[in-house]
Every structure is written in structure tokens, then in C-alpha cells.
């Protein structure tokens, strides 16, 4: 639904954290198996990275999938055709 990601409740916990999801993979640079996928902000904006946690080699940098909720909010009209004025 277009308007499903405009308003959010305040988190229940007093502090909040970014979750790093372990990924079955091996770092091509250092061989470490400590690889994780998580949301970051890079020089362009919000992205999902799969990254070696030992040496920070980025195995992949992609746009978030809808279920990643990254960022949580999004434009309600993002996939509508654009008029001359937007």
C-alpha cells in the first residue's frame, strides 16, 4: 500500500541498535568467515552491505529490499508515473 511506511511507533526499548545478520560466506580478501549483512549509509545514502567483519571488505553493496525496511519510511508515490511537475 502506498501509505504503509509513513508513520511509526516509538521503539519500546530505551536504547536501539543496528542488527548485523551473519552470512555464510568467506571474505575474498582475508579469508575470514565472519561476514554479515546489514543496513548502512554510504556516500550515496541508504544501502545494504554484505561485509567482512574482520577487514571490512564489501562483498556487496545493494539497494535495500522492501523487507529490509531501510530506511523505514518511503515516498508513498515512489513507483507512480511522474507528471511534468513531479
Amino acid at each position, binding site marked *: 500500500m502506498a501509505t504503509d511506511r509513513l508513520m511509526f511507533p516509538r521503539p519500546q526499548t*530505551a*536504547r536501539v541498535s543496528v542488527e548485523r545478520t551473519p552470512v555464510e560466506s568467506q571474505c575474498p580478501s582475508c579469508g575470514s568467515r565472519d561476514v554479515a549483512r546489514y543496513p548502512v549509509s554510504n556516500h550515496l*545514502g541508504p544501502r545494504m552491505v554484505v561485509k567482512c567483519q574482520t577487514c571490512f571488505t564489501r562483498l556487496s553493496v545493494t539497494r535495500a529490499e522492501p523487507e529490509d525496511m531501510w530506511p523505514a519510511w518511503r515516498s508513498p508515490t515512489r513507483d507512480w508515473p511522474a507528471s511534468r511537475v*513531479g
Partner: protein
Amino acid sequence: MTTTTPATDTSATGPDVELDILRYGLIEVAREMLDSLMRSAFSPICRDILDCTVVIHMRTDEGWEVAALWEGCMQHAFVAPHIANFLMDDWDIDTMQPGDVVFTNDPWRGSLHQADVNLFRPVFVNGRVEFLLQSTSHLVDLGGPIPGGFSNGAQSHFEEQLKLPPTLLYANDVAVRPTFNFLLENNRVPHLVLGDLRALHGCLVVGERQLQDLIARGGLDDVRAAGRYAIDATEASMRRGIASIPDGDYSAEDFLDEDGVTDEPIPVAVTVKVRGDSMEIDFSGSARQPLGNSSTAWCEAGRCIEAVKLMVDPSTPVNSGTLKPIDVLLPAGSVVQTLPPSSASSHADIGPRVINVVTQALGQATEESFACDTGTAVYIGFSGIDTRTGHKGTPWGAYGLAGGGWGGTWKEDGVSFCVTPIGNCRTSVQEHVEIESPLVVAQHEMLIDTAGAGRFRGGLGSVYTIMAESDTLVTVVADRLRRGAAGANGGGPGAPAVGWYIAGFDLAEHGDPMNLRGAEPLFGVFDEQGRPDPVHGEFGRGARYTTGKFSNLVIKAGDAIRLIIGGGGGWGDPLAREPERVRQDVRNRLVSVEGARLSYGVVLANGEIDTAATGARRAELTAARDAGTWEVPIAAPLEWTL
């Protein structure tokens, strides 16, 4: 599109002169844009305070990258890259035409807060958008319940200023009337905002003309290659700086006093992870978004990198290369990434706090560290309807930035009387304020004993006293009320912020800021007699507010507000500061004789160092510190008159 990337290590081959000339050509286009903007803006916030910046974004395969910019104010430089990409994710580039200008001020699309507006103009070459020019400035007003943009007390963005997603402001250089009507009809100072919007548009026209001229001379391919060269060179320099930090995870925690709604401190936690020439700045463990307006929606993703830039690569031009080695992790729903419909208008304390905490974390990794800056701008917004002869009935708005101190560093004292590093804005030009607004700036000067003590002390804070000639509505945004900026490596904290209301202000009677007669406490830590005393006093004692974040205070005509902003934290043991430097500070009225004895263990008699007494005093304080009965005191002016 493919652009060749020249080698960025120029030591062996020498710089590519052509590309270097074009790289500086891009920076020169930006410089002319900013000159045009500040010369033609109507409001003091843009024209005098320089809370504005201009940017040249370059189209790349991945998105939009900043090739060059010119600052009025540093924070805009660090958040601009994301705003451009959010905007272009939203806007169909195929509908763009030459002379279009798209406007947004949405915090969830990267804007610092609603008051900071961003205009974007596509630059076409051979029918294709190749560059995007951006002008950005704080506007004096954008409607909402509270003038000026810091909506203290608001708990949702519905109660704040107008918030526009990307919206067409000019079509083919013709003003889009509905957009202008919307902005101007919902505004307290439409004449100022119209002037500023036209200036923001005009500087884009200037920028496009200059950029097209550069492209005509250099060729598109070479200008793009020069943009890439600029980004790569900055990235390489930033990476060299990061690589000089030992690999490791460095954690620190600081806090905001509260959010102006509840009285709970708001922790800001960070872990800075360094791996080779890459870095992560992870704000996991920070507080959830507060109820009040003290959190930001996205901008800390870029702004926190200012701390790294200042520490490891202070001299290269800022562009997207500055951001490239770093991933930032912002927990959703936290104080650094609040979720709608939260309020998000008060960015001026969380911004410095984020930089402070990254500085503190990196300070563990390097000897070449520095202590925290004041950590709050002590922003004051003034507005009202003028009642002066010749100005009667004119709506007006003005700003004051008290200016604090930067922290002491590993090699020198901090910079005094200077706005926090988030912005490096100037304060208002006092003469302009007094002509354009019914205000008299009675004093704005450095204040003794406000700098954190250290081997290298912090920069000094200041006192700012403004009298109203017409009834004036005031918003204040101040933090670090209980304890000032943290010191580093054994240095002491700077002085906390304090505010008073002075009824019937008379310069002859109230001109001495150390004289408390007739001064009603607004906020701060006070002793039983009403002296500010962060060491022994009680927070909020006898004061009108128990927060430094309030709006709708009315200064009646003839009355005044006085604010103290503390200085930066000290770096290193103040008992190891050269006594001669302490003597010079006392001679220059930056430190009192008593302050020298209490914080530095330096005993002065008739302006000269008593060497024996100093040695004894320092030995006594060192022993007390070892025994856990003494710590470097929080800086505080001492010589009050009741």
C-alpha cells in the same frame, strides 16, 4: 558512462595539470555561486551568518556524487550528498527541463531540519542532465506554531514548520506560482523569505552559466574527469588519514541533557571501527528517539564524518570522496534517526554531540586528539512586530549564535569565541541586527573562566546580552547545562550554559556580566545566593526553566536576555600547563587569579608567579587527585557580584 580515473598518487608522475586546473575550475564555480547567494540574500541567517552552502553534484553510474562545493557552513557540505540522491531517487529525471528548480526541506530526505531548504537545478549538456547544482540555506521562517524553525516542545512534525517533499519551484526559470504562494502565504516574514528564495535561485543561474562556460572551455569529458579526479584525490587522502589510526573498535558515550519535554538524559553512544583505510561509525546503543524535537531524521549519517575529517584529513577539499571510506550505522528509531511522525527540528545539539562522541572515541586511538567543543550553539531566535518609528508594523526575525569554544588539542589551546564545528557559522553582524530589528546587542564578548582547564586549555566561551526595543518572542536552544564540554587526557570540562532575564535593562547598571543584581535566572546550576556554580550548585534552583530548550519567552520592550555559553574542554593535565602560559591567561583576563589556583595549581601574586607556592600547590593537588579527593573542576566564572 565511463570516465577515466587518473592516478591519485601524484608523487611519482606529478599532477595532471589539465585536470587540476579543471578541478579548481569546478571549485571556482561553487565559490562564485556562494558569493552571489550571500550578496543577494535578504535575511541575516544567509547573508551574515552564512548558514548556507552551494554544491556541484556530478552524475555517475552509481548515483550523484559531489565534485565540488563552497561552504558557508560546514554541516551542509556533509549532508548535501545524501539530499541530492534522495531527491533524484524521487524525481523522474526524464521530466526535467533546463531551468527547472526542485525544492525540498524534508528531514527524512536528508535535510538538517525543515528550516534548511535545498534547491536543485539540472545542468544539461547535449540534452542530458550531467550535473545538479544545489543551493541551500536556513530560512528565517517557514510557518508552524513557533517562529524560526526550532519547535521546542513539539512531539510530532505536524506541529513544526512546513515540510515539502521534492517540489517544483521553478519550471524553465519561471516561478511556479502555487509553490511560491504556499511558502509565502504560510510565513511570518514573507518579504525576507521571498528575497532569500530568489537569491537561492539566482545563484543557481550564476552557477549554471559558469559551469557551462567551464565545459565549453574544457570539454564535458575532461570536466567530468576532473570531478572524478577531485573525488578520488580527496578519498585517497581521507583513506591515508584513516589508515594512520590503529585498527580497532573505539567506543564512547556522551549525552544530551534532555529533550525539552521530559527531564531524562539522552545517551548518544558510538563505536568507531577502524580496519585498514576503512571505517564504520556505529551509533548502536544510542537512545531511542526522544519525545521532544531533539533528534534528527537522517543528517547525522553525513554530519558525524566532520569529526573524522577534522582529525585525520583537515586540508583537502570536501566532496563525496570524504564520505567514501566510511559506512555509518544509524539505528532506526534512535536519537540519530528518528522516525516519522516524530518532531525533528532541533538539530543544533544532537549534531555537536554526535561529533563530540566520535571525537572522544577516536581520541582513544591517537595521541593527536582533541577535547570536546562546547557542544551546543546556544542558539537564540528572535521575532516579532517592530514598533520603532519608521519600522512600525514590520514583521521581523533575527538570530543569535552565542559562539562557544573549541576543545584543547594535543598541541595547542582551543579556538575561542567560535561557533561549534557542526556549522562554523558566523554570528549575526550586530550593526545589521540593530538596524533591521528592534534589538540592541548590549554585549557579546569572551568571558573569563569559561574554558576547560588543561595543559592545553579549551577555547573560551562568551556572554551575550540582547535588549529588546519592541516586545520580542524568543526561542532558545541550549544544552550542556549541568556540565560543560568534556575534557580529554586529564583535561577539565568547560563551563556549562546559563541564562538570565534582566527587566528594565540599563547598560550603566547591568553592563557588567559578573554583576547579578537585577538578573532573574532562566536556566542553569545556581548556589543558594544565585551564583552560577556547576560544582556545588543545584540545577534549576530559582530558575524559570529546567531546560535550555524553550520557546515563546517574551522579552518585553526595555528588557534583556543574557546568556553564557561555556568554552571547550581542556586537553591534558592542567597541573602540567606551563605556569607562564597561565600567567599570560590571567594577565589577559581569560583566567582569574582564583581560577589559576583552583584549576591549574598556579599561585600568582601581583601578577607574578610564586614559584615555591605553585610547586607546593601542584604537589598538594596531585596528591589529592591520587587519593581520589580532587578532580579538575568544571570551568566556571568565579568573581560574581551579588
